[in-house]
């Protein structure tokens, strides 16, 4: 007989980031009982780390005049490279202004419009008008026609999460932190809640609910180097995948940022290159002009990232204990400039690498940044495949971002989706009974107990969790990164399959008792490798380039064959995901040119091919 604690509630929300908390608030507003689970106290969730801002077409600042949901919608669809569902993008763009204003009402100290004339860094003169003074202002972000990104200095995520959590506290919503969901309870048709492991005591708990919401954030940590928090391991996604009936959407769509600092992966903003920083290779050669004679270091994010990896692959990376990297050089900008205009960068360099960018080179490497894919849901946030299961935020593929997310659209998504999906969750829950057979609960808990006992006894093998994990991370970094091609992706799939088999034979070196961190990692690893396989195998099969998915061997977007979304299923006992496809919803804006110049993957690929030709001829 298993020993575990049981909790019953109306709505179970797994994840206390912005998406999870906003959903919980909405459900609680409808009079429902809600329990939120989280690995960490809510305010430590990754959402807190976002600095830039949140998009909403308020049109209050000079460079935002005339903005409206139509333009926001259009930017979002173009940004997605026509990979998003347009009905979702429309709902999103229409709701974002309400979301931002409600956050203001709840307490976010958004920066406000200050009237007057200003000169922009590029010399343009603008004037903020008196009539808008004191309203919420916005800053410029890539890929938007208007300045639309609302912000609070450099702490947008922090203020949003703290404000959101203050409402959760005020409403008395139950939060169980240091509580990790490790399996969903379901019968192949309905979802009834989750089995969780307490990260204080190691005890198992069963949470029974009329509806369950996955809000566990992204999977950045599948990659060896990521700007994400170390808890972003995609666990909600692999819990859903493990049911065998819930698919993940577009897992091959992974966003990279060119300059994550080595080894920690902390972001060095584009400002460094904007102000005149160079990228150098191991011979201290400035290589970007060789590839992109016009734009050099200031080509778009995905182009620069691709060039850096290409150069490293040719053997020009700087070898280090953490693998090859390149250098970012801002020394020539001078101490004065660095310590005033680029103070943030100087601080990061000092705190996290102990270097002084006025005299030292900064080690950088393109770094995983955002996961567009996730638990596939319909426009109501209801997951495909299981009644009573929902998903929101970065863990979900709602699908607003398609193959490329615009900066500022993910914070907006967490809150807008929280509002919309929260309401749908409430409607569903009010009409649903909780008739979960207790035998089913017992079975699910028992299965987890067995997994834990196997790991502790080492009955199935002695494989080392940290070693396998490292190999998985390296495989994704090396073969499923920014540039992709058939042979490399095939290598990745083969390697990941081998790792997957080995991950079923893990054995612990510690006792695995109580809150054992090694046990926690071992419980997650097979699921993480499954996600890795969904990414690699999805990418191998998608023979085109779209948004962040750039195939060297298929450099163009192919709307004839690929205007569709990948759905990855994991049938019981499988060693590879089963891929299916569905069309994307086009309602208003037919596929066309993104108009990004070089930042469009397709265009970038075209220029790449042209360069290669030039190279051959010359």
């Amino acid at each position: 007989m298993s020993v575990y604690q049981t909790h019953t509630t109306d709505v179970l929300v797994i994840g206390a980031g912005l998406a999870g908390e906003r959903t919980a608030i909405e459900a609680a507003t409808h009079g429902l009982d809600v329990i939120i689970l989280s690995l960490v106290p809510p305010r430590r969730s990754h959402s807190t780390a976002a600095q830039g801002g949140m998009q909403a077409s308020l049109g209050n600042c000079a460079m935002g005049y005339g903005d409206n949901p139509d333009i926001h919608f259009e930017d979002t669809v173009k940004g997605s490279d026509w990979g998003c569902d347009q009905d979702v993008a429309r709902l999103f763009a229409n709701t974002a202004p309400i979301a931002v204003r409600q956050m203001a009402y709840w307490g976010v100290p958004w920066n406000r419009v200050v009237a007057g004339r200003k000169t922009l860094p590029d010399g343009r003169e603008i004037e903020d008008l008196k009539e808008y003074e004191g309203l919420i202002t916005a800053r410029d972000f890539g890929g938007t026609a208007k300045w639309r990104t609302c912000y609070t200095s450099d702490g947008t995520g922090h203020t949003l999460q703290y404000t959101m959590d203050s409402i959760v506290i005020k409403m008395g919503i139950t939060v169980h932190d240091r509580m990790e969901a490790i399996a969903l309870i379901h019968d192949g048709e309905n979802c009834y809640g989750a089995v969780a492991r307490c990260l204080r005591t190691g005890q198992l708990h069963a949470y029974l609910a009329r509806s369950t919401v996955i809000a566990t954030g992204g999977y950045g940590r599948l990659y060896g180097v990521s700007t994400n928090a170390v808890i972003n391991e995609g666990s909600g996604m692999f819990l859903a995948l493990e049911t065998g009936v819930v698919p993940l959407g577009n897992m091959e769509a992974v966003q990279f940022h060119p300059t994550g600092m080595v080894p920690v992966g902390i972001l060095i903003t584009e400002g460094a290159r904007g102000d005149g920083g160079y990228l150098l290779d191991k011979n201290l050669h400035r290589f970007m002009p060789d590839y992109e004679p016009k734009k050099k270091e200031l080509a778009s994010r995905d182009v620069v990232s691709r060039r850096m990896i290409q150069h490293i692959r040719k053997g020009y990376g700087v070898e280090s204990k953490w693998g090859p990297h390149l250098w970012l050089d801002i020394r020539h900008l001078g101490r004065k400039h660095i310590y005033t205009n680029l103070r943030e960068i100087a601080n990061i360099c000092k705190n996290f690498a102990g270097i002084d960018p006025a005299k030292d080179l900064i080690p950088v490497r393109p770094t995983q940044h955002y996961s567009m894919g996730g638990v596939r849901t319909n426009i109501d946030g209801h997951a495909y495949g299981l009644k009573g299961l929902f998903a929101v935020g970065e863990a979900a593929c709602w699908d607003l971002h398609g193959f490329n997310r615009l900066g500022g659209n993910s914070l907006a998504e967490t809150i807008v989706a929280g509002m919309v999906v929260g309401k749908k969750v409430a409607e569903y829950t009010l009409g649903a009974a909780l008739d979960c057979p207790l035998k089913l609960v017992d079975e699910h808990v028992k299965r987890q107990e067995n997994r834990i006992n196997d790991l502790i006894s080492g009955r199935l093998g002695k494989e080392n969790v940290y070693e396998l994990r490292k190999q998985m991370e390296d495989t994704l970094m090396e073969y499923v990164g920014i540039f992709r091609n058939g042979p490399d992706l095939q290598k990745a799939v083969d390697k990941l399959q081998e790792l997957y088999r080995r991950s079923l034979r893990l054995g612990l070196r510690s006792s695995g008792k109580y809150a054992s961190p090694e046990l926690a990692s071992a419980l997650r690893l097979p699921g993480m490798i499954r996600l890795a396989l969904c990414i690699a195998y999805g990418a191998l099969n998608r023979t085109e380039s779209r948004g962040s998915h750039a195939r060297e061997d298929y450099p163009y977007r192919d709307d004839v064959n690929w205007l569709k979304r990948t759905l990855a299923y994991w049938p019981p006992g499988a060693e590879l995901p089963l891929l299916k496809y569905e069309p994307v919803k086009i309602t208003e804006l037919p596929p066309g040119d993104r108009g990004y110049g070089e930042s469009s993957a397709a265009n970038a690929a075209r220029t790449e091919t042209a360069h290669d030709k030039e190279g051959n001829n010359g």
Partner: protein
Amino acid sequence: MAERLLTFSIFRYNPNTPEIKPYMQEYKLEEMPGMTLFVALNKIREEQDPSLMFDFVCRAAICGSCAMLVNGKPRLACKTLTKDLPSRITLLPLPVFKLVGDLSVDTGTWFRHMSLKTEAWIHTTKEFDPQAREERMDNETALKIYEAERCIECGCCIAGCATANIREDFIGAAGINRVARFMVDPRDERSPQEYFEVVGTEEGTFGCVGLMACEDNCPMGLPLQMQLAYVRRRMAAAGLAARPQTRAC
């Protein structure tokens, strides 16, 4: 750069096994360029001792998870470079907070309790109107609120505070700073009297004995003593204003 051999002396204790008394355990590790305690502790766990417990989330000095006593001082471990430390490094969990195990402490429960106690949310009688434009606010005011809201709840100020170490219910510098954040916010309709009830006690502003360790230890560089002075001034004013009323009844 000459590489050193570092010796880590780390506090070990698991509250689930009280029969094993707390002890210090030593680990040796070769220093690497740019090594932070985040990198070092993960290396120790992955290569030497997978049972070691500690907390990191953002590893970028944003989330406040990783505070511990580094050679006796409350610090964020993720932004502490080994090269700034002697080759012998002692790591202990933060005091005051409940121990989860080894270097991991339960700051979450403490801060949630503090938020409840100070009712750290906007108190307003206004309703939200989804159709209406947002209320205006002066940008200076917005920036002022943000300045007070930059606390990441790491607990360094609490751990270094003499009062918090002896008085369990003291809300500490973090709590007082939180109250100040809502006091400067025009959206919060609480009167000085109402704040007085929250912080005008020994558990609040009057518990502080002014040793200033909070401000020295704050990794965000928050002006905690100034916030204390601000709240005290407002409290004093509220106290004076309250007197005639008390006499009247």
